[in-house]
């Protein structure tokens, strides 16, 4: 009975504490003020494990068709490049202003701290899932609401080759016909 009372007290304290933090307004939600290391790590781990689990059974189609690069390139330029950058670009208004900082997809996946993509198949699965479903409270939209799977796979194919592209190649591939 004592243990039960103790647990009840702990639960009441937890709920009370949570409500106090929530309603007092002391949590700073400004995007120009980074999370503490602990909060950042918690959110990052939650996000990465969630994406990994949700994307694990996605079947990856053949992404080597050159047509995919043309479709995906044009979409990337107009939907993604302002945040995820392009060859030889190191920052933009969006990449500087968003928090968490959107990964620079024009550089290789190995340099994405906190967004490690795994092998080629796992990386394609994750990219597809994130483009299709978006990520809550991060600025990443769910493009699946307005784009079919084929167009999203085309973007995945383009993103796969993006770190190897020169600015000239990027310009040709992403130009509107």
């Amino acid at each position, binding site marked *: 009975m004592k243990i039960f009372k103790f647990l009840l007290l702990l639960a009441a304290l937890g709920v009370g504490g949570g409500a106090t933090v929530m309603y007092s307004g002391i949590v700073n939600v400004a995007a120009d003020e980074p999370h503490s290391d602990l909060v950042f790590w918690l959110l990052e781990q939650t996000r990465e494990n969630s994406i990994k689990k949700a994307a694990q059974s996605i079947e990856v189609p053949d992404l080597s068709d050159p047509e995919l*690069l043309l479709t995906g390139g044009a979409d990337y330029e107009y939907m993604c490049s302002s945040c995820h950058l392009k060859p030889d670009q190191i920052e933009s208004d969006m990449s500087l202003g968003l928090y968490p900082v959107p990964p620079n997809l024009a550089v290789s996946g190995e340099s994405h701290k906190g967004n490690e993509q795994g092998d080629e198949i796992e990386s394609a699965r994750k990219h597809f899932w994130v483009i299709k479903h978006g990520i809550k409270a991060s600025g990443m939209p769910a493009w699946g609401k307005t784009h079919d799977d084929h167009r999203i796979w085309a973007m995945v194919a383009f993103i796969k080759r993006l770190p*190897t592209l020169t600015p000239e190649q990027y310009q*040709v*591939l992403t130009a509107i*016909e």
Partner: protein
Amino acid sequence: MKNFRKVAFIVIPAITLSISATAHDPKLHVKKAEKADCSKMDHSKMDMKDPVAIAMMKKCMKQAEKSKGKMDHSKMDHSKMDHSKMKKDEHKTKKKDDQNEHNH
């Protein structure tokens, strides 16, 4: 005094907004449809088995085919156009038309 307050109420936010708007290059916000710049393609360095090279070739060939049917007036150098000849030709065609009319 009231007028001064009114003016300040409008001018101060306007100045503040204009300063923040010019804090970075406005060109960054411009997104215009650009044609593929195929002039920089170096075919000798391209691996024709690479999907990137194939995609670029496809894009540039499509663009070339499209522009065949259309004259690109933006690339024309109007300063080099000989207008005097153009008038002559126009005059000639007019004359021809007149002759044709007389022949009827």
